[in-house]
């Protein structure tokens, strides 16, 4: 089966600009996650979707970050405006509820 697809792989933007990341989960996986991985740290959950509903967004900086999962399939994560501390790898993952999480390759964001 195809894995979790993410794009773009790399993105460089200036601070205060906006950026969007896209994720296509494994077909049939109801749950989708966005994680932020800052260099030298473990991934941190930003938001979790179950189909097209938000299950947990307690760690999402809602003043600048937003995410949606229309139709319960693809998802986009947006940052507007970006700050220097947003430089990180953004990982998307999906699961079917069997505690088998599949991760995408991530988008490496550099804010300058």
């Amino acid at each position, binding site marked *: 089966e195809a894995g979790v697809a993410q794009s773009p792989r790399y993105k460089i933007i200036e601070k205060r600009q906006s950026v969007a990341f896209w994720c296509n989960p494994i077909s049939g996986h109801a749950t989708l*996650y966005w994680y932020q991985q800052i260099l030298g740290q*473990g991934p941190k959950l930003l938001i979790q979707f179950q189909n097209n509903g938000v299950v947990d967004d307690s760690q999402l900086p809602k003043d600048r970050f937003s995410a949606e999962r229309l139709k319960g399939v693809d998802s986009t994560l947006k940052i507007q405006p970006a700050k220097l501390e947003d430089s990180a790898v953004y*990982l998307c993952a999906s699961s079917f509820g069997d505690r088998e999480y599949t*991760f995408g390759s991530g988008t490496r964001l550099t804010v300058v």
Partner: protein
Amino acid sequence: AQSVTQLDSQVPVFEEAPVELRCNYSSSVSVYLFWYVQYPNQGLQLLLKYLSGSTLVESINGFEAEFNKSQTSFHLRKPSVHISDTAEYFCAVNSGANNLFFGTGTRLTVIP
């Protein structure tokens, strides 16, 4: 609240020597435990997991981990490492909320 502690941020080891990467967790409820491996510029790959049953779990490439409830540990071991094992290793816990909480990672470097 749950947390994961990986005490060693870096572990250098000579090729064909044994290695142990330590992981301790805290959680007030039953847990599911995972080890993920991350190669440079790639996403996270599941190495092994403990959900229930035998407390000793193994991966296909020679790693094993043992769930120790009394010590709240899930240490990763391999009796003989290869150059190709050089990577970042993350311990993660899931305590029922259906999302993963990660440790800060251990960078394993295998020295020829």
